[in-house]
């Protein structure tokens, strides 16, 4: 099994086997996201209390889930990079960070827009909102720390350590609405109980969530492939790849 993992961890092997994967993920995201968005924003029924402002859920929940999943992925990569020194893990952690930061910002922004009509305020310092803001700052810190080092490897290690420190924030975000009194309501979706809304409302939300994960996969995979080429540009296989592509075009 270790051999199999090491084979996957080789940038060259990963680049070759992932060639087919990225277009599929992009295609999936490009189908699921527009369908889910149109369904949710135009055809799903409005809520009996919140009316149309309820539709912000179709942007808010997927972006918030991605913000947390992306950080979890970065933490896993950090362990793999620090313990096994696998460079591919560092590459994935590097390219995932900006995506996670944008998703966190999207979740905070859509939440603020939603808060004005329903709560009567765009921001309160409650545990959920504050821990989410801390997540955004952690992302900024991780991105900045990586570029604060002259050597790429040292930057990667520092960023990995900060991701591991920051991972403690994830359970705090998740359970903040249960541990403390917050203005934010508890989760609508969970793996263990039925969704707290009818099918006509949760099906488009599920499509948006799957689409968001497909987009996440597509972005991370494509950017990982670019980063592999950049880091390995002196390697023979990259030179061969480029000469091949040029030959085909001429």
């Amino acid at each position, binding site marked *: 099994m270790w051999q199999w993992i090491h084979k996957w961890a080789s940038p060259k092997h990963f680049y070759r086997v992932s060639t087919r994967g990225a277009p599929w993920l992009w295609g999936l995201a490009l189908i699921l996201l527009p369908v889910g968005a149109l369904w949710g924003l135009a055809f799903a029924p409005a809520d*009996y209390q*919140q009316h149309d402002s309820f539709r912000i859920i179709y942007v808010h929940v997927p972006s918030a889930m991605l913000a947390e999943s992306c950080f979890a992925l970065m933490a896993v990569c950090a362990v793999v990079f*620090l313990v096994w020194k696998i460079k591919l893990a560092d590459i994935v952690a590097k390219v995932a960070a900006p995506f996670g930061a944008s998703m966190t910002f999207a979740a905070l922004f859509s939440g603020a827009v939603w808060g004005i009509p329903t709560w*009567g305020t765009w921001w309160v310092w409650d545990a959920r909102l504050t821990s989410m803001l801390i997540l955004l700052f952690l992302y900024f810190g991780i991105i900045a720390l990586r570029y604060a080092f002259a050597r790429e490897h040292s930057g990667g290690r520092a960023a990995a350590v900060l991701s591991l420190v920051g991972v403690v924030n994830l359970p705090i975000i998740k359970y903040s609405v249960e541990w403390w009194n917050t203005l934010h309501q*508890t989760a609508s979706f969970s793996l263990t109980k039925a969704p707290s809304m009818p099918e*006509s*409302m949760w099906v488009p939300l599920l499509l948006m969530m799957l689409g968001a994960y497909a987009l996440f996969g597509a972005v991370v995979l494509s950017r990982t492939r670019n980063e592999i080429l950049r880091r390995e540009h002196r390697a023979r296989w990259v030179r061969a790849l480029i000469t091949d592509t040029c030959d085909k075009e001429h």
Partner: protein
Amino acid sequence: MNAVRKRRLMIVLGLVALVAVTVTLMLFALRQNINLFYSPEQIVGQEAPTGRQIRAGGIVEKGSVDRNQDSLVVTFTVTDFKARVPVRFDGILPDLFREGQGIVVIGTLDASGTLDASQVLAKHDENYMPKEVADVLDKEGLSPEDYRAARAEGKLSYPEADRP
């Protein structure tokens, strides 16, 4: 796994465990300050300071809302079904404000125990429902709250009106 990697893994896991313990202790020490609001029970039990701005959270008691005809002044009672706190507010209420709604009130307690509110925020729950379904329930004489309670026990599913 060789010895070097095992040691590195232990260091990494140790780091995460250490940070987790630190943060847990900090949050435990600050637990009262992290709560967004005091419950009516805490306020009646004099756990909340008077003369200083506090937040109170609870449900607007049914039948307690009294709107002044000549101004924006509203008085109502906030309850957690254990204790009740009277509130006076002069301003614009959020759309979701109604009797039976969860709210958070920001204001100061006066000497008589009335909360003089400067801002009222509406809390909403995680349950969403199309208007048509709410209408169907209304016809059957069920309120969304009763219906949810029955559904939580697995007795009911959503009525037909929600089919797209």
